[in-house]
């Protein structure tokens, strides 16, 4: 481990900035700028951390926290962590740029940016956490800002109910994680995530299996794997759009990160193997369930939300294949799914912003009026469908390759079929909204205009990112391979 201040900075800067934003209650414009600067700075810092991490394996800092309990506040970023953090911070910065024009400062208010920054700080902190209790603390800290964002700015009929459903269900998942964490701490006496592998190897297999199941269920709730998905469609579709992006494209990565980190770097290989088939089945169900529901719904944000469940099925499928390829694909898919889903949500947001329509059968033929949005939305759709040369193509096919290297070839074939389903519902969305007869049942078609520049800019940035990852994936492959080296499994 190399001593580095950056992990601390990328946690503390957003946290302090969030407090500043909360304090600037009367000046939403200032908080907007503060949030933008903070997000860009955090993204830049997390990128600056990448070479160090690749060179030294990991970088971090160790601080005293609760002396009486013997807990430290240690932040450490390794290759897997830095990949997750970069995904989070970069997408967050782009999302903040988008939110600048999607919501006026007065509409958002200072506290919107305050909660957002606190949300980001908690996510970054949870990824960088090395102590189990610290991890749980920051993991749960994500809940409060995200619930507040849904409840205060939500647009559905009952945003409170949605927010609290989200809160309670994810808290139940977290409670399972807490049980497992406390169990581990007391049985092994070790609370450092990076030192646990050795300590856990001595435990009896039955204990390890129970622990692994607790962790898996806990993280699967955050990943919204069927049947723990019930909170997701409402939360993601009723939240305001920038928050949907945060939840769908960014927070989902936390569940993936947690599952991979805990299941593969902590436990001996045999434990994950015993769970493989069950995970794979749930992954397939999520994939198909999400896809079919997405096809079934006409509300655009709900389509994207169900698509998230389906995509998380892909990721879990990669994890459950228990192969290097599958894991690599899953990790890679964090970035690619994040990019594509953020892009899809943002283009839906642009459509909603300029037409006022929320259902895809209320509008049509918008490509002429909003050509750039149409382009970006098509990129997102193609990426989710796994079309080359976009980034998601890479990760999805690595995941499937992983699936075929597992013993369950039949299941892998079913998973591949699901990608056809994906193509079907995303392209249906694009075709209905942007092509065909020009119409807008929710307003005057002639007043429909292209999205404002900041929104377009963030969408372009995401499209280019997706394209760049697809065209030049080698760097990312190397990065993830460094991460996988620390696993030492299979």
């Amino acid at each position, binding site marked *: 481990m190399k001593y580095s201040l950056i992990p601390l900075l990328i946690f503390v800067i957003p946290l302090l900035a969030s407090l500043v934003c909360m304090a600037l209650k009367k000046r939403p414009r200032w908080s907007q700028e503060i949030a933008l600067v903070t997000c860009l700075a955090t993204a830049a810092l997390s990128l600056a951390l990448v070479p160090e991490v690749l060179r030294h394996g990991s970088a971090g800092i160790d601080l005293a926290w609760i002396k009486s309990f013997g807990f430290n506040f240690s932040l450490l970023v390794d290759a897997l962590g830095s990949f997750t953090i970069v995904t989070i911070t970069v997408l967050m910065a782009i999302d903040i740029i988008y939110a600048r024009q999607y919501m006026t400062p007065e509409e958002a208010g200072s506290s919107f940016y305050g909660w957002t920054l606190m949300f980001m700080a908690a996510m970054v902190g949870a990824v960088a956490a090395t102590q189990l209790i610290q991890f749980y603390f920051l993991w749960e800290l994500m809940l409060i800002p995200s619930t507040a964002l849904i409840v205060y700015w939500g647009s559905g009929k009952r945003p409170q109910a949605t927010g*609290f459903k989200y809160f309670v269900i994810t808290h139940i998942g977290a*409670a399972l994680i807490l049980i497992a964490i406390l169990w581990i*701490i007391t049985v092994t006496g070790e609370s450092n995530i990076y030192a646990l592998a050795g300590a856990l190897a001595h435990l009896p297999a039955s204990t390890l299996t129970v622990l692994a199941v607790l962790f898996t269920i806990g993280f699967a709730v955050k990943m919204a794997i069927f049947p723990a998905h019930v909170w997701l469609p409402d939360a993601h579709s009723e939240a305001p759009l920038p928050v949907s992006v945060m939840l769908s494209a960014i927070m989902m990565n936390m569940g993936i990160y947690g599952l991979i980190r805990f299941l593969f770097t902590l436990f001996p290989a045999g434990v994950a193997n015993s769970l493989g088939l069950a995970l794979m089945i749930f992954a397939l169900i999520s994939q198909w369930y999400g896809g079919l529901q997405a096809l079934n719904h006409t509300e655009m944000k709900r389509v994207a939300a169900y698509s998230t469940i389906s995509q998380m099925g892909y990721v879990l499928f990669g994890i459950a294949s228990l192969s290097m390829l599958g894991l690599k694909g899953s990790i890679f898919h964090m970035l690619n799914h994040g990019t594509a889903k953020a892009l899809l949500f943002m283009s839906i947001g642009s459509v909603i912003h300029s037409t006022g329509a929320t259902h895809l059968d209320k509008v049509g033929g918008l490509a002429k009026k909003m050509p750039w949005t149409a382009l970006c939305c098509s990129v997102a759709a193609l990426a989710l469908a796994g079309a080359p040369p976009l980034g998601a193509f890479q990760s999805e096919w690595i995941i499937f390759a992983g699936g075929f290297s597992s013993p369950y070839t039949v299941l892998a074939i079913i998973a591949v079929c699901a990608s056809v389903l994906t193509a079907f519902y995303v392209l249906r969305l694009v075709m209905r909204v942007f092509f065909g007869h020009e119409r807008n049942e929710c307003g005057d078609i002639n007043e429909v205009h292209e999205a404002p520049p900041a929104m377009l800019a963030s969408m372009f940035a995401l499209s280019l990112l997706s394209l760049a990852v697809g065209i030049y994936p080698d760097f990312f492959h190397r990065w993830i391979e460094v991460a996988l080296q620390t696993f030492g499994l299979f």
Partner: protein
Amino acid sequence: MQSPELFWAMRILLPLFLGAVVTYVIGKIISRIKGDRAGGVVAAVIALVVTVAAYILCFTYPGAASAGAESGIAWLGSLKPDALSLLMAKIMFPLVILVAIYSLGYMKDDSGTDKYYALMLIMAGGMMGVVGAGDIISLYVFFEILSISSYCLVSFRKESWEPIEAGFKYVIINALGSTVAIFGLSLLYIYSGSVSMAEIAAHISGLPDLPVLAALALITGGFGVKAAMVPLHSWLPDAHSAAPSGISALLSGIVIQVGFFALLRLILGVFPLQMQMVGTILIILAAVTTTYGNFIAIAQKDIKRMLAYSSVAQMGYIILGFGVGFYFHSADGFTGGLFHIETHAFMKALAFLSVGCIIEKTGTRRIADLKGVGRVMPATAVAFTIAALGLAGIPAFSGFMSKLMIYKCGFQAGTALGVVLSSIAILNSIISLGYYMPAIHTLFSPAGEAAAKVKGTVSPAILLPIVIMVLITLVLGWHPDLGLGPVNAAVLEILNIIGG
């Protein structure tokens, strides 16, 4: 060097009781001359001065170094304050001070507030006497001072039916409880011929089992009433919801904990041999208490009754910490229990104070009628939210840290029983979300009738304690070390006594 007994009598008890007399007399005189409201204000100010002075004095505790020092005064022998008592003092004084400030705004339209503040000081003095007592009779006398003053405070607003009826229920059940406890203690006196805890403890090993167990059962049952252990809790929801909100805060925040503390003191002082068994009983009672309290709280429609049942549940957590501590000889159990007393005191008081403020403005206690109040009274509603999330044990609030210790101690025991207990505790914190969340939800949903009634701003005297308690809850949630100093000293004291 000053002995702890003299310190306790002169710097804690004397100011409080003397202050109560002064408060009452001067308050009475002023209210005769200038009217009731002025009398109330003067009484409040005197009470505040007295409590703040006693609080500051309590930092001059001579410390463990002087524990052996003799006061040389025979009658002070019935006091035996130690680090545990000091911890309770350090929790109680801030709470009483904040509640007194709050009452300045909250009780300003009531009559007879001079008596209110005098009774509050007496209640504080009674609590300090209970925690500092070293023999069974002083324990009983101070316990009764505490009880009588709290009876009268509960039915302070006697003009409506609820406080008075709840008050009688409170009187009869608590009088039964404390008399059963003193009956158990009197049996101990018959068998040992002494009232000092240390001397009884020296005698007890030579006694046959049955009288000791009978006394233990009577004492546990008797003080269990005050500590609101299920099934002896039935007075609590009525009394805590009928009392004025400031008093509810004190009752839920510290009085029931003092009731448990009396039991704890006796277990530590008199029954060290039965500790394992007491631990078992406490664990069972705690599991039942927590689960029952949480499930019944879900069914409540009245927000104060909901909080009262949540107190029952939280008492279960505290008792669980001590039960595990006794059963497994685990220091973490005691730390968890004591720290939860500390954090719960401020969280629950915060919840009651903010709810009291909301009730005062809207005039209703039905949760369903409070729709949209959070939009017209944002500060108070946010304070309630913080308190509720803290009570549910969500990280970033102080309740998480203390509950974490309690969860951890169960696992640390390393047995299946410990794991099961901790899991019950963790699952219970989820169940508790089942009533906190709907309440928060109602507060923040679109405006209803009650919200329309809210007029005017909340007075600063009400807001100040709420803000301070919010800060305490948040700071202890992020940096619990700040509150753990006295707790650790108290745990050391317990470990000294039980020799663990």
